[in-house]
């Protein structure tokens, strides 16, 4: 299926985990939640929370995740225990966490986000479903909102053994290395600008967060609108200057052990004191959402931490790999109906470093964006590792 979104949709706030795990404590601050979470769940939730860093919960129109096989470690652990323990006194935690939408749910739980929430489990193709769903969601939700899109998959020794028996990712006489990872990013219909300013301006007009003292404090950086030192992400201290953010654009979306973050406050509404009932009447009411660009000043810091507003990255469409042969000369430009050349990034070229897995494309996408490796113009990221792979078209 070929899908072209109606309006321009921007990608920002990318984060990913692959191979190296971050220090989860920094982002998943509640020890009680953390101790129950399996590794993949922590990876997926970490990414989701990192991407939502500084974004008010009211702005989130939806959380949509996808996975190929889900939480295999928990599934196998619970499944084994059924037989080992002869169906008595089983630990419920791995059962609960084997549910595919646990990551989506935890992100919503920690951030108290009551908006649309769903999970697609469709091999490598679930990511396509999430992009289509996110695009439709943003159509309905209006300009000032974001959708969080996430993906995750893990490998265990059992999974590796079984996939070899099934011939998955076979190449020649051997097999591609099996990988794992998680990724998340924000999709928005508005060009991302400095969120803190626009939220500050909106807060005064709609009373957003006015009931919760700690939340309204976090939106006031104390600086003038449009000032370079307006902090991103929203910082309770308000005094963090832009230059501290300058150094490494990857600081918002690193993969290695998370270095001590200068922006200590996470998240803006962590107090969670704003109860669900306060949202009850606002659900579906667009006036309570914080428009990203309505009051945007001249500062054009995009949500992924770079300061270059011109580097705004758009999601332009997706198609199934199987759609390609139908075009003359297998032309990507023809497939997407564009009159321009298309850079191609093939997932197959990254298998050596990332491994093959069903969520490879979204993890690679976020990695490349985080490392600023998406070329100017149109780029198609092609998941030619998975049989049911998709092609995602971007424009920078």
């Amino acid at each position, binding site marked *: *299926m070929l*899908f072209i979104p109606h309006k321009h949709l921007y990608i920002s706030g990318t984060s990913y985990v692959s191979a190296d795990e971050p220090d989860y404590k920094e982002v998943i601050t509640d020890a009680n939640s953390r101790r129950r979470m399996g590794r993949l769940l922590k990876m997926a939730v970490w990414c989701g929370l990192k991407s939502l860093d500084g974004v008010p919960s009211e702005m989130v129109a939806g*959380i949509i995740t996808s996975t*190929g*096989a*889900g939480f295999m470690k928990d599934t*196998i652990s*619970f*499944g*084994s225990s*059924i*037989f080992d323990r*002869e*169906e*008595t006194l*089983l630990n*419920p935690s791995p*059962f*609960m966490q*084997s*549910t*595919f*939408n*646990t990551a*989506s*749910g*935890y992100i*919503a*739980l920690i*951030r*108290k*986000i*009551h*908006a*649309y*929430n*769903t*999970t*697609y*489990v*469709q*091999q490598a*193709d*679930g990511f*396509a*479903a999430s992009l*289509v*769903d996110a695009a*439709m969601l943003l159509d309905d939700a209006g300009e000032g909102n974001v959708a969080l899109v996430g993906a995750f998959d893990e490998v265990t020794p*059992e999974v590796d*053994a*079984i996939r070899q*028996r*099934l011939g998955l990712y076979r190449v020649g006489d051997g097999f591609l290395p099996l990988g794992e990872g998680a990724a998340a990013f924000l999709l928005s219909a508005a060009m991302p600008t400095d969120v803190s300013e626009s939220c500050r301006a909106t807060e005064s007009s709609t009373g957003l967060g006015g009931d919760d003292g700690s939340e309204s404090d976090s939106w006031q950086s104390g600086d003038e609108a449009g000032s370079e030192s307006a902090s991103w992400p929203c910082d309770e201290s308000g005094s963090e200057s832009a230059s501290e953010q300058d150094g490494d654009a990857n600081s918002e979306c690193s993969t290695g052990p998370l270095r001590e973050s200068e922006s200590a406050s996470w998240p803006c509404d962590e107090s969670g004191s704003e109860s*669900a*009932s306060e949202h*009850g009447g606002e*659900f*579906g009411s667009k006036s309570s959402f914080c428009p990203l660009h309505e009051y945007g000043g001249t500062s054009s810091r995009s949500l992924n931490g770079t300061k270059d507003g011109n580097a705004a990255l758009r999601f332009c469409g997706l198609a199934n790999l199987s759609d390609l042969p139908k075009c003359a000369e297998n032309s990507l430009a023809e497939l997407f109906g564009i009159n321009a050349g298309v850079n191609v990034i093939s997932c197959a070229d990254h298998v050596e470093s990332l491994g093959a897995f069903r969520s490879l494309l979204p993890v690679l996408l976020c990695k490349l964006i985080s490392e600023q490796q998406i070329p100017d113009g149109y780029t198609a990221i092609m998941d030619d590792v998975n049989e*049911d792979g998709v092609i995602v078209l971007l424009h920078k």
Partner: protein
Amino acid sequence: MEVYVSGLGAICAAGTNVAECLESMRSGRSMLAPVRRFQTALGFPVGEVCLSDDELKEALDIDRQEVASRTALLGLKAVDEALTDFVSRSGKADGLKELRCAFLSGTSVGGMDLSEVFWQEHRDDLTGGDAKCLSMHTPGDVTSMMAHYLESRGVNIVFSTTISTACSAAGNAIMLGSKMLREGLCDVAIVGGTDSLCRFTMNGFNSLRILDPEICRPFDESRAGLNLGEGAGYLVLTADSEGAVCRLTGWGNANEAYHQTASSPEGIGPGLSMSAALEQAGLDPSDIGFVNTHGTGTQVNDLAESNAMLRVFDGAVPPFSSLKAYTGHTLAASEGIEAVLVCKSLELNDLSFMGSCGFSSPIPETGLVPFRGSCSYASKPRLRNVLSSAFGFSGNCVSLVFSDIIDTQSSKAL
């Protein structure tokens, strides 16, 4: 753009097709009993479909030797009925070949019925056994197999995917289908869900201590938990009113964000999804003639859902019921199967098969009494709009509004 329900199919403990389900449920008798298909130490009553895997394969013309998860087989049985129903209602014999069809299916267990058999025997030596049993493990694998089956029988599937949000999955699939139709991404959306009983889920729910050793008693003071079930329910959604059963006029999805497996006592999440569905449908709470609840029979759900209804309907809760004592809690399939029954109730203006069973005294905190299927409903105003909800783990709440097709100028109650 109106979204029409143009075909229905279901299979569960109450019957192997829609007509059988209606007949069984009109009797007011629950068929739940301990599972027979596999060995387990857990003797809880469950809603088991009375057909074996081989019988299902035979009904679907699938070779007995072919590896197929029961989840896929139950699903295909219901989809087959829904598509046959669609062709007959719409008069479009070749419709499914020519129209662009999206197949959106919800499941929580996927092919676990096969995986756990393999796992029991071979987990210590993964080189043994038939690995093909694991090729249908994930929800996506099950949906792929179903999609291939449908394509091989001439259905033009342009898009298929699996929603897996635990007990609300079919509801989310139905919601996605209506959005895709409106977006013009397909002409027909085949939507619903399927799940089969297996030791994994039985033991999983038992480990949470929320299974009732007796037949469940939704909304009753003495309720002690849920009974699991299996089955599948699918709708065919189109933009064409020709021969349609009813309309899908509202949908809403909200996240409770309260706890991983439980609702808040106030039922915040359920209230949000119900309100969103009403808003989408452009209806006032007073326009709803009947509510099909999630009503699992657990202490937590039924109280939360009652409180949500009291709030959403401002105290004036319409007749409502839970069908779980007939079907069991069919997990991801629940909103699919129950949506089928809701659509029938609108088509026939008949609630005789929609009564709760097992109820004797109300929850003290709410005093709400569910509808128990009396025939006197026939004398009431025509059933115009029905609200149906399902709530899954991780706070996933989905609600749908179905409306009749008699007066498309206005869905308002007469």
